[in-house]
C-alpha cells in the first residue's frame, strides 16, 4: 500500500475521487441502466453547464445567467458571512476570556445552536419576506455559531502566562488583545472562519430555494421545477467548486494578513 501511495505524485491525490466519480458516472450513463431523467449523461450536463456559463443571454433558457447568479449569491454569502464574523469573533473572544460573558451567553447560544437552521426558514420568511434579507439572515445565523464557538475555544486555551508576559513587557491592554490574544488563538479562529464560510454556502442555497429570482440556489430550484435535471447537477457542481475556491481564498487572505496564520497554521 505504501509503495503504491509513493508512486502516485501527491499533486494527483485530490483528483482521484472526483475523476473516479466522473468515470463511474460516465460508465453508468453509457450502459443506460439509469434513465436520464434521474441521472443525465455527463456530456449533457457539460453542455448545459457550458451554455449556462458562457452562452449568450436570450439564445436559450438559462443561457449566460451564471455571472448574474454568481454575483447575487456572492454578495449574499459575503454580507451574511461578514455579519457573522463581526458578531461572532468579538463575542467569542470575550466569552473565552471573561467568565461573566461566558455565563451570560453560553447557555443561550448553545440552546439556539441546537435548533436546525431549516426551522428558522419559515420565521425568517415572515420577518424578512422572500429574498435577499432572508438569505442574509440564514447565512449570518448559520455561520455565527462555528465562528463564535471556535473563537471562544481559542481564546480560552491561551496560556495566561503569555498575557502575563505581555503585561510585564509593558504592553497596553488594547495591544495585549491584538498582539497576543488574537495571534495565540489564531488557529482556532481560522478553523471557525473556514467552517463558517463553508456552512454559509449551504445556507445560501437554503435561503435561495425559498423563491428568490436569481442566485445559484435559485437556479437549482427553478431548473428542478421545469424538469431540467442537467442544470440541477450543473448548479451542484458549481457550488461545490465555488465553495472550495472561496475556502482557498479565505485561507490565502488570512495568510496574507496575519503572521500567526502564515507561521502557525
Amino acid at each position, binding site marked *: 500500500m505504501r509503495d503504491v501511495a509513493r508512486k502516485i505524485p501527491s499533486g494527483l491525490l485530490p483528483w482521484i475521487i472526483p475523476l473516479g466519480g466522473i468515470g463511474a458516472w460516465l460508465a453508468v450513463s453509457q450502459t443506460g441502466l439509469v434513465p436520464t431523467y434521474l441521472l443525465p449523461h455527463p456530456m449533457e450536463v457539460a453542455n448545459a453547464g457550458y451554455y449556462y456559463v458562457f452562452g449568450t443571454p436570450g439564445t436559450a433558457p438559462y443561457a449566460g445567467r451564471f455571472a448574474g447568479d454568481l454575483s447575487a449569491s456572492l454578495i449574499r454569502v459575503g454580507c451574511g458571512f461578514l455579519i457573522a464574523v463581526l458578531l461572532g469573533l468579538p463575542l467569542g473572544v470575550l466569552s473565552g476570556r471573561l467568565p461573566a460573558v461566558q455565563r451570560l451567553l453560553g447557555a443561550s447560544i448553545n440552546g439556539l445552536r441546537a435548533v436546525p437552521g431549516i426551522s428558522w426558514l419559515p420565521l425568517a420568511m415572515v420577518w424578512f419576506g422572500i429574498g435577499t434579507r432572508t438569505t442574509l439572515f440564514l447565512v449570518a445565523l448559520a455561520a455565527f455559531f462555528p465562528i463564535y464557538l471556535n473563537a471562544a475555544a481559542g481564546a480560552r486555551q491561551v496560556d495566561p502566562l*503569555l498575557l502575563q508576559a505581555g*503585561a510585564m*513587557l509593558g*504592553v497596553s491592554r488594547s495591544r495585549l488583545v491584538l498582539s497576543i490574544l488574537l*495571534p495565540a488563538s489564531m488557529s482556532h479562529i481560522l478553523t471557525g472562519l473556514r467552517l463558517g464560510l463553508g456552512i454559509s454556502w449551504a445556507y445560501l442555497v437554503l435561503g435561495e430555494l425559498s423563491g428568490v429570482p436569481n442566485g445559484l440556489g435559485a437556479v437549482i430550484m427553478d431548473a428542478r421545477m421545469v424538469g431540467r435535471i442537467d442544470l440541477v447537477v450543473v448548479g451542484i457542481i458549481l457550488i461545490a467548486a465555488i465553495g472550495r475556491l472561496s475556502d482557498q481564498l479565505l485561507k490565502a487572505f488570512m495568510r496574507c494578513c496575519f503572521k500567526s496564520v502564515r507561521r502557525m497554521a
Partner: protein
Amino acid sequence: MLLQERKTNGMTNAQPPLHDANGPHGGRSVLEVKDLGRVFHWNGSAKPVLEGITFDVTRGELVCLLGRSGCGKTTLLKLLAGFLSPTTGELLVDGDPIKRPGPDRCMVFQEDALFAWLTVEENIAFGLNGRKSGKAAIHQEVDRYLALVGLRDFRGYLPGEISGGMKQRVALARVLILKPKVLLMDEPFGALDSQTREEMQDLLLQLWKELSITIVFVTHDVEEALLLADRILVMDRNPGRIRSDLRVPLSRPRARDEDEFLSMSRELRAVLRL
C-alpha cells in the same frame, strides 16, 4: 562556618546593610520587601504561603532565593513582578510601591513563555515596539542583544524551531533589552540538561557583569545558588519564611570543584535540611 550570616528577621532596615554606604534607607537599595505576607484561600480555608518576609536588594546585586519545592518561591517572585498582590506588608522598587506588572521588573519564567508566532528577533523586539523609538533604533538595539545572548544566526527562527537553552536565551534577551531595574528569574534553567545549564549560568554571569543588572534568582539547586549568588536567602516551608540570609564570600570566577566551594555546598545543604 564559611558562609556568613547577615541580619535577618525584619532587622535589615533598622540597621545599615554591610555594603550600604548611603544610610539606613540607602539610595542604592533597588528592591525593599517589608514584612510581606500572602495568604491563599483554597477550598474555603486560608493557607498562609508566605509570612513575614523582609529583605532588600542592592543595585547590582545577584541574590538567590533557595528553597525546597512548594516553599513559595514562585509566589514571592510573582508578588515582586506584580502578578499577585500581597496580603500584608510592603513591596518597594526604588521607593515606589509595586502595584501592577511593568517593564521595570521583568521575569524569566520557569516555563517557556515566548510568543510562538514571532521569530527570535521579533520576540526580543516585542517590548520595545510600544515605545516611542524609531524602527532603526529598535533594530540596532535588537542586534546588540542578539549578539549578547549569542543568537545572531538564529534571528529568523521561530521558538518552535530552537532548543530549550536557546529559548531561555531569547527570554533573557527580551527582558534585558527593556533594562529592568530588577531581573526576576524563576528556576530558568531547571528544565535544561546539565551541560546547557552550565553554559547558561556562565552566560548569565557574563551578562550580569557586562550590563550591571540587579537579579533575584530562584532555584532549588544548592550548587547553582553558590555559583551565582552574592547572597543566598534560604527559605522555609509552611509558611514560607526566610530562614537565613547568607553572604557568599567566594571570589569570582567560581569553580565547582574547588575545596571551598565543595565544603560550602555541604554546609548549605545542611542549612537547607534543618
